[in-house]
């Protein structure tokens, strides 16, 4: 009797007569994605093209905005900075990847550890540190050079396009490094050995065999840098505002703030946003093309320890050079922020008598900024993490297991907000959630949460779907054969199997959300300031040493979270 019952239920399900879990999830996915992804993007396009005061299609403004001198300059800067950053970051990244992946340079462990730091420090804090050191107006390093060598003019000026390029390259070369070092480690070492035995010298092997084989890895790292740089807000805003150097993201934010709610201002910002989307979109299309082109099969054969190339005489000079480089680009900014955070006021000479705990006292006790900002950031990090995790698991399940019609569309919608520059996403959220659909979340923390959820959804989707695709359908089928329902097999079989991926994808969202600036800077209200924005505003208000103190606290919070996560993920690996 029971058997027939179940059969009938399944038959009905097959005919689609009864609402079942699959349909519910599919519909829910569509609805949620339309809310978080389509609404903001749609509102940007609508506002850019539609003049609501006269209710007519208006494309004339495009021309006007595009021909403005400042906007042309911003566009030029964006592209110059994007390409130069990519070039420099690639050179540095490939060099270090080869050095650590293939040569016998000592202290690899230390260097690998140092490479992780730029990932932990938000780039805008790094930019702030570089500004403190190398700003033409009173940068500490500049002042030291001037007093030591009796120079009339400051030797360095970081508040230039070149300065922005260098700082961006320093914070983005790990993208290239990570991709290339992974490819080198996977590479079959006999590909290189066979060239050596054929009579090729070391340099020939590097340039003709090793590098061409990792070209796919290099170029995907390069495009990652290019896309990040094009959409970057933190570094050009920290370094460029004082010298009136704008890139598209900073110009959009500046327009948006200058508009102060005026309709024309918002329209200008949306039009610039569309421009930025086009620029970044081209880079994204290139990236997709590249990922789809067949990669070389360089992982073959038995795994053997790759023979490390002996650097011989070059060993110690290279070691000194690399350590010096890493100390300057990684540790010096960190030290500078810490020192500044103890200064009574920014600009005072670095002497013991000028040190105090005044700034910490200020942020901890005078106006409990730390408490509010940390609370907001932690709340946002956790809730965005959980929302993205829930959505990501559901989406990947729907896309890869339920396979409804239009799953390509679902995937596209999920990745769409991630491809948008953070600035553009923020404007979209403002336009969509400030009453346009009778919901006004402006100035609350919820609008930031929606933006974060949209922005980081693709992280959890990617990680969960990769893991879900490895769960063979027969595992679920086996549980169905044992009498479990669809939902039961999902919770008892599938979910436990992808649990490790779920845990790590939660942190993939939590960590960047903790240090976010680009999106939140446009979305914060008086009560919803995040850590990043608070630091940014302190600095913009000239309280650089207070900003540094808060920066130190932020970095400490991020590092603690990182260490905790490292521990959790390590424990989970055994499963």
């Amino acid at each position, binding site marked *: 009797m029971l058997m027939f019952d179940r059969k009938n239920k399944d038959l009905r399900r097959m005919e689609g007569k009864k609402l079942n879990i699959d349909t519910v999830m599919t519909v829910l996915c569509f609805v949620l994605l339309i809310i978080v992804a389509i609404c903001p993007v749609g509102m940007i396009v609508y506002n850019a093209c539609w003049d609501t005061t006269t209710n007519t299609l208006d494309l004339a403004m495009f021309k006007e905005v595009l021909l403005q001198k400042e906007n042309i300059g911003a566009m030029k800067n964006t592209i110059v900075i994007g390409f130069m950053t990519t070039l420099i970051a690639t050179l540095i990244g490939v060099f270090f990847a080869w050095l650590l992946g293939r040569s016998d340079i000592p202290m690899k462990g230390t260097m690998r550890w140092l490479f992780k730091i730029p990932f932990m420090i938000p780039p805008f804090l790094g930019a702030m540190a570089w500004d403190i050191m190398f700003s033409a107006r009173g940068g500490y390093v500049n002042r030291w050079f001037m007093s030591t060598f009796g120079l009339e003019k400051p030797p360095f000026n970081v508040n230039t396009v070149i300065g922005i390029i260098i700082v961006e390259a320093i914070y983005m070369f790990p993208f290239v490094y990570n991709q290339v070092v992974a490819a080198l480690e996977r590479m079959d070492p006999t590909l290189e050995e*066979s*060239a050596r*035995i054929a009579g090729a*010298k070391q340099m020939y092997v590097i340039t003709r065999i090793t590098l061409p*084989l990792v070209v796919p890895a290099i170029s995907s790292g390069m495009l990652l840098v290019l896309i990040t740089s094009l959409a970057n807000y933190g570094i050009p805003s920290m370094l460029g505002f004082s010298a009136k150097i704008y890139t598209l993201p900073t110009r959009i934010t500046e327009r948006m703030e200058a508009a102060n709610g005026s309709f024309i201002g918002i329209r200008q910002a949306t039009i610039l946003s569309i421009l930025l989307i086009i620029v970044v979109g081209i880079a994204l299309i290139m990236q997709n093309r590249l990922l789809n082109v067949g990669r*070389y099969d360089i992982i*073959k*054969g038995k795994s053997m320890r790759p*023979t490390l190339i002996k650097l011989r005489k070059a060993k110690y000079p290279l070691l000194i050079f690399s350590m010096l480089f890493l100390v300057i680009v990684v540790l010096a900014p960190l030290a500078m922020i810490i020192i500044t955070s103890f200064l009574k006021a920014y600009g005072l000479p670095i002497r013991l008598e000028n040190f105090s705990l005044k700034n910490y006292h200020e942020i901890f006790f005078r106006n409990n900024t730390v408490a509010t900002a940390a609370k907001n950031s932690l709340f946002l990090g956790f809730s965005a993490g959980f929302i993205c995790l829930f959505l990501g698991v559901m989406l990947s399940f729907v896309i890869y297991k339920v396979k409804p019609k239009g799953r390509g569309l679902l995937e596209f919608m999920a990745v769409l907000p991630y491809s948008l520059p953070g600035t553009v996403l923020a404007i979209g959220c403002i336009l969509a959630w400030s009453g346009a659909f009778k919901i006004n979340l402006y100035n609350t923390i919820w609008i930031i949460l929606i933006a974060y959820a949209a922005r980081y959804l693709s992280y959890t989707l990617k990680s969960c779907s990769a893991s879900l695709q490895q769960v063979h359908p027969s595992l679920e089928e086996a549980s169905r054969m044992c009498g479990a329902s669809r939902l039961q097999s999902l919770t008892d079989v599938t979910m436990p199997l992808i649990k490790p991926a779920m845990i790590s994808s939660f942190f993939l969202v939590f960590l960047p959300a903790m240090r976010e600036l680009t999106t939140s800077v446009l979305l914060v209200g008086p009560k919803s300031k995040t850590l990043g924005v608070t630091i940014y505003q302190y600095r913009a208000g000239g309280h650089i040493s207070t900003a540094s103190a808060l920066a130190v606290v932020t970095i400490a919070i991020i590092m603690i979270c990182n260490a905790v996560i490292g521990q959790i993920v390590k424990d989970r690996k055994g499963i």
Partner: protein
Amino acid sequence: MAEERTIQIELKHVTKRFTTKTLGEVTAVNDFNLKVYEGECFSILGPSGCGKSTTLRMIAGFEDLSEGEIYLSGEPVSIKKKNLYVPPEDRGLGMVFQAFAVWPHMNVYKNVALPLKVAKVPKEEIKPRVMKALKHCSLDGLEKVYPSDLSGGQQQRIALARAIVINPKILLLDEPLSNLDPKLRETMRFEIKKLQQEFNFTIIFVTHDQSEAMALSDRMMVMDMGNIQQVGTPTELYNKPINKFVHSFLGQSNFTQVIAENGKVCVKGCTTPLPVEAPKNMSGEILLATRPNTIEINHSDGYKAKVIKRVFLTDFSQYLVDLGGGQIIRIQTPHRNIFRQGDDCYVKFPSPMWYEKGEEDDAERAKRMVI
């Protein structure tokens, strides 16, 4: 016969030790002394982790020695004491790797031309030489194709063409056939042999496949746990294995525990002497080693035993025969002398071999598998 031939490769007291974090020091290759003559095909045979690949990589120059000296064509290439080390690219060798290691970003022609290009061979000479090498490896017409569009066998031929294009005196082959399917393996084996006869290469061939080694080599070496077990021609090694390991590694073996006393040999736990001549200088508990296909089995003559199982295999019959005392041996015969399960039978051992009863050190073997 070997004496008047030129020595092409010579290893003197070559030792290689690795230090691993978990296991401490492991000797991968222990005090090797070896001479390989010009035009010889010499194979190194042994189970995984025995040190055979390490030996080859030391000859190629990819691994440094811990001790000892290596000479190629009379020239020293690695001498630990003098810290002399010639890098692989200056040793003038040809080598074929197990995973083919053809460069996926170059087409067939460029793959094969690279050794000539780096050797600064004049441009006009390169093309005819590449074409000749490709022809020898039956790859003509595929110059413009990229390796990923070719089969495993064709990729292996590229690797072979690339190794022979510079006319090396010495060709090193590191399990070159183990990634191919059995049929292709046979063809490639034949082609390698043909090339060797044509160009008179000295070949060092590393493999764990005994039939491959037997078919290809003039002389071979069996090694285990970093030590040379025996060096000789394939027939010598098969017919006169020096110890139990070599016996069991080449061909099929029966090892029977026996007790030799007063010129008589009995199966352990039995009293009837076996119809064999007792070994001269061994006594007590020893091992009798036999090949399943050399044992005679009949209805009346020899040592009485019991058939416990008969398996009809395609080309021969296989019997499992109980000699008493729980000692069971395998016997292979043509499809004559049909015995059934449970029948009594009589066996004779025309070519017995005797070994000391050795203990297998499984822990040591497991440890070596890691390196």
